[in-house]
């Protein structure tokens, strides 16, 4: 059954998060071969995807180091028989999901949330570049809108989300000449962070009534962002939070 992403090899990080898992399922349904990368908590949905007929592999990898990310991408490529052409990046440390005011952060927490998240994003993009530099590729960061809006209790996480979003813009500028496009898919914090409800900067409830279902609502958007039709979109932030945030990103 050919799909919009048939023949693509997609690395997905952070699939322990339901929102990323749903997007991975949508990519698989669209024909992409999927490699789940990361620590064991992010690999658990491999059986579920396989049962649904997705060509999928799981690679345990230490993504916060460049060598670990590169080894993970190499293993993914070997297992799926082609270079990696897509990176969907949503990896997060679990502690990033828990609220903690800035004044209560210790350096260890700041390091796990800000530093590890950014080092992981950088390493994964460096590893992706090795596969994409000569044949082009697609990178999508999946981040909650908490970086755009700020979110009580999530200063270090918001820093990391906005760090990733601006990294995406910088890479769009740097790697466009290689045919690599880089964008951000911004989702509701309600789908990711614990206790983040009610911290929207907007007084509005979602125009569409909810934060969305990861696979049914966000999956098709991710598939479009990775498909051939959108090859000329780069450096963009697509806000798909059900219609809460409507300011310019």
């Amino acid at each position, binding site marked *: 059954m050919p799909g919009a992403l048939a023949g693509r090899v997609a690395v997905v990080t952070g699939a322990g998060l339901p929102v990323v898992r749903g997007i991975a399922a949508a990519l698989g349904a669209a024909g992409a071969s999927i490699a789940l990368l990361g620590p064991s908590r992010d690999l658990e949905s491999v059986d579920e995807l396989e049962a649904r007929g997705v060509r999928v592999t799981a690679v345990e990898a230490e993504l916060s180091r460049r060598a670990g990310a590169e080894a993970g991408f190499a293993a993914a490529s070997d297992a799926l028989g082609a270079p990696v052409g897509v990176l969907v990046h949503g990896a997060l440390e679990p502690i990033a999901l828990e609220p903690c005011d800035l004044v209560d952060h210790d350096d260890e927490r700041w390091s796990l949330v*800000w530093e590890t998240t950014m080092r992981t994003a950088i390493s994964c993009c460096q590893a992706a570049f090795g596969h994409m530099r000569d044949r082009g590729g697609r990178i999508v960061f999946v981040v909650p809108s908490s970086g755009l809006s700020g979110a009580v209790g999530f200063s270090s996480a918001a820093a990391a989300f906005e760090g990733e979003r601006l990294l995406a*813009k910088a890479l769009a500028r740097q790697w466009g000449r290689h045919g690599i496009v880089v964008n951000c898919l911004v989702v509701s914090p309600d789908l990711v962070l614990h206790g983040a409800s009610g911290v929207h900067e907007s007084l509005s409830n979602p125009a569409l009534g909810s934060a969305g279902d990861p696979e049914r609502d966000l999956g098709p958007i991710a598939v479009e962002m990775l498909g051939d039709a959108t090859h000329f979109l780069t450096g963009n932030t697509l806000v798909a939070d059900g219609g809460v945030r409507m300011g310019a990103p």
Partner: protein
Amino acid sequence: MSDAVASTGAGAGVARRLDGRTAVVTGGGAGVGEGIALTLAAEGANVVVAARRAENGQPVADEIVRRGGSAMCIVTDITRRDEVARCVDETVARFGGLEIMVHNAYSGGVAHELQDLDDDLWDQNSGTAVWATFWCAQLAFPHLQRAGSRGRLIVLTSPSGIEASANLAVYPAVKGAQRAIVKTLAHEWGSYGITVNCIAPVAVTPSIGRMFDAVPELRGRVEARMALGRVGEPEHDIGPVAAFLAGDGARYVTGQTIVADGGSFMGL
């Protein structure tokens, strides 16, 4: 650390908007930080010039005093928590409080593409921009809380933290991260009356000056994008924006980024 020197000068007898308040300006020994330090002092604030090297910071403090202001230099490596803590403690010990924390210091603006990034350059960017924002905010907080509606955290970000740059991969990331911290703190500290904002300047600084020297046509290209047609001057173009945010007139402005770039970026 030099001895604090305070005096009254030309402004004595005329109420100025920051009279009686104390500001710390990190990276206050040069460029935008120097400009902000001079301006806040001219508005009446006691200014602590926090600089990594005394040979940069002390002359700025001396200049403030020469102009009749109140200042001291505290040598501070803002990539170390204990040094930021000492800077805050010495400030409060000398001046009795801290109302305005300005985090401006940054290093690591070396052109690179991400595939060539090394750990040292990342550590410089992450350390001076993001870790130092965290520490400056956290360690100043008890004093800003005491200052209540006069409490201010001002963080110097960059237009690059909004629209990124082609020749710097991680600079936009750390500058964007600062904006997210500022927005979050605006929420977390709003109930105390403390305001938290960013300034995104484009101004002639030693580092930009070196870039202009290295690439002579760059200045023309930058200025051609600017509605005002010139690169800003730290003391007279950027300093007053910080003074506005520091003063009572901006007490209802929080979580914002004021882009002071001569009208290049207009994407908001």
